[in-house]
């Protein structure tokens, strides 16, 4: 058993590993290529950073290719992303041409010489038109909540997706009708990553002190000693509703002594981040005890410490793919208040592993409940940790991905026979 897999075996027991080894035997001799558009920032890059080495250790040679693009291309793909999330923003002919032009350019550059090609999200979806080779199996993995997809934008993407051997979404409500088999697979987290590993108290305090000192502003709070902290850690993105979090906090703050921390950064493929951050700063200026922290890419240890220091972790998103920040907080046995959107209800089983809210007032109510009841926080934290351990760690996601390829290969050989 190699190093990375060995650590998981200690955590989960041997059973899951016999299954992974069995899948690897079924796929022996095949090369896998993962493709997305960023190596840093966002949940997809985070999953791939961990899963790619694990797959290689398992004996399935796996490469990770990054589709590149200029700012204009990423503006188009951001609009596609938002429209598929339910914020219609029609694409012009120029936008469509820009998407096709970069796809053609990247199709010529990328190394897609595997047997199993795994494409993440809509940005690289059209590569299949240019690069599919005989004998390859192509799978499209969509991390976005497609339940409110804008029909016009979806009709632009759908013809590419229809060419895949299988599609994967995170929840039943996200699944569009497709001719290809579509499967539901939830994403997962790495419990040993800097962002999730156990932190000794002294180390946590040191990281928090360094963050407070590094923030520079005179009114920067002492993250290590002040609190209790209500914390949301997310990209500064309208769909994460940071303004809604401030509104909920302002209701709580009228009756309870507590502080709000909004921490996050902008992914390299998200040009809206700076704009949203300015809006958040403006709203926060009129509410006491709100701290805003911009985190540079790679602030995994800092995020770990901030989540552990939180009394309540909030994820008040308006739309979500899956919301890995929720899984991270639950893994750290934190009490979580989150919106019932996207994949969050799969993680937060209401009153069992966390609390769900559907409005600003609802979020404020659940935050207050948790601030008042340490025993409830503790109980939810324990249950939440167990739930993530069983269902949302990397070996389970890898297992399901490999099973999709095995199923697609079996299907192909049945049709050939």
């Amino acid at each position: 058993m190699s190093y990375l897999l060995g650590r998981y075996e200690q955590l989960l027991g041997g059973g899951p590993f016999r299954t992974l080894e069995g899948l690897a035997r079924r796929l022996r001799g095949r090369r896998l290529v993962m493709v997305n558009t960023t190596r840093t920032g966002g949940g997809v890059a985070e999953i791939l950073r961990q899963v790619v080495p694990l797959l290689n250790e398992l004996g399935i040679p796996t490469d990770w290719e990054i589709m590149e693009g200029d700012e204009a291309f990423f503006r188009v793909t951001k609009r596609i992303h938002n429209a598929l999330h339910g914020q219609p923003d029609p694409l012009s002919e120029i936008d469509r041409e820009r998407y096709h032009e970069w796809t053609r350019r990247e199709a010529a550059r990328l190394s897609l010489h595997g047997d199993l090609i795994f494409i993440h999200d809509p940005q690289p979806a059209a590569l299949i038109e240019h690069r599919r080779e005989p004998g390859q199996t192509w799978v499209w993995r969509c991390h976005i909540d497609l339940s409110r997809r804008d029909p016009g934008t979806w009709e632009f993407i759908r013809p590419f997706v229809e060419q895949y051997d299988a599609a994967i979404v995170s929840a039943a409500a996200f699944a569009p009708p497709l001719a290809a088999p579509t499967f539901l697979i939830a994403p997962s987290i790495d419990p040993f990553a800097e962002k999730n590993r156990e932190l000794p108290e002294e180390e946590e305090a040191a990281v928090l002190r360094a963050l407070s000192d590094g923030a520079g502003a005179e009114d920067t709070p002492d993250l290590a000693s002040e609190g209790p902290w209500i914390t949301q850690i997310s990209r500064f993105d309208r769909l994460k509703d940071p303004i809604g979090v401030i509104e909920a906090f302002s209701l709580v703050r009228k009756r309870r002594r507590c502080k709000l921390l909004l921490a996050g950064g902008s992914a390299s493929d998200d040009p809206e981040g700076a704009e949203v951050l300015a809006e958040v700063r403006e709203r926060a200026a009129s509410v006491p005890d709100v701290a805003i922290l911009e985190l540079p890419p790679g602030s995994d240890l800092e995020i770990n410490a901030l989540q552990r220091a939180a009394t309540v972790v909030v994820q008040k998103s308006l739309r979500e793919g899956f919301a890995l920040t929720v899984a991270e907080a639950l893994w750290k046995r934190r009490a979580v208040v989150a919106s019932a959107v996207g994949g969050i209800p799969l993680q937060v089983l209401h009153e069992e592993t966390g609390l769900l809210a559907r409005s600003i007032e609802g979020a404020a109510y659940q935050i207050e409940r948790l601030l008042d009841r340490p025993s409830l926080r503790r109980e939810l934290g324990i249950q939440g940790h167990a739930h993530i351990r069983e269902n949302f760690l990397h070996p389970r996601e890898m297992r399901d991905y490999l099973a999709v390829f095995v199923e697609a290969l079996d299907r192909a050989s049945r049709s050939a026979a």
Partner: protein
Amino acid sequence: VTPPTPFRFVAGIALEEPTQVLAESAAALREVIAVAPPAALHHHVIRIGARFPRSREVPPNDFARWIGEQLQDPGAAERLAYAGFGVFDTFEELRGRLLAALGNSPSKREVRDEEARFRLVAARMVPVPLDVEASTVEELLDLWPTLGHESSWYHVVDAPLLGHTEEQGLIAWLDRTGGSRWASSAREALRSPRAAVDLHAELLRRWRRSDIARRVVERADRPRRVDAAADQATLTRIAQRLHGAEPREEA
């Protein structure tokens, strides 16, 4: 005498496949259940224990939970939950019980929110050979703790109901291999709803109990000097640990 065929273990991975079939009321759910493919009944009812493998109590099936949570009809939810408990020889038997639980004229009250509608999902099973096999029931007992609950659940619950090849039904293999007492014990364990981890452990507990007589006979047949040597070795190891010395390498 023909030696028994070895039992080859596989893990059953259930890929969840959305069907695009929705229900917004109990009446619509009844129509959905009436025509749902077996793979969907399998996912929503039979595999609950595998989908929530560590729960202390197995949650009610998805139909029951949806009627209870979204339509706020606890009576219908209880009836559906009860209909889904137990062992089924066929999916048609299960379907009949679910439809009977909903009655002939279920409520037409609808959920308003689109996200709250019931979504029918089917389980597509992918059996993965594990390269592990048992030739005798005794070997099975030794191997069982090293297997995952995905394997035990598949062999005991999924494969027989799905009509997968006969070799993949563990209880039938036990019957064929002279382990009929073990097979009965497994059938008994399946009568109560259990989460997969609990079922895996319960089967081991039961089989170990069934195996006590064999082990007593085996021990009685062993020459006394073998036991005495083993006891002496154990005492030596304990004494060395108590004195802080490293245990000696066995010759």
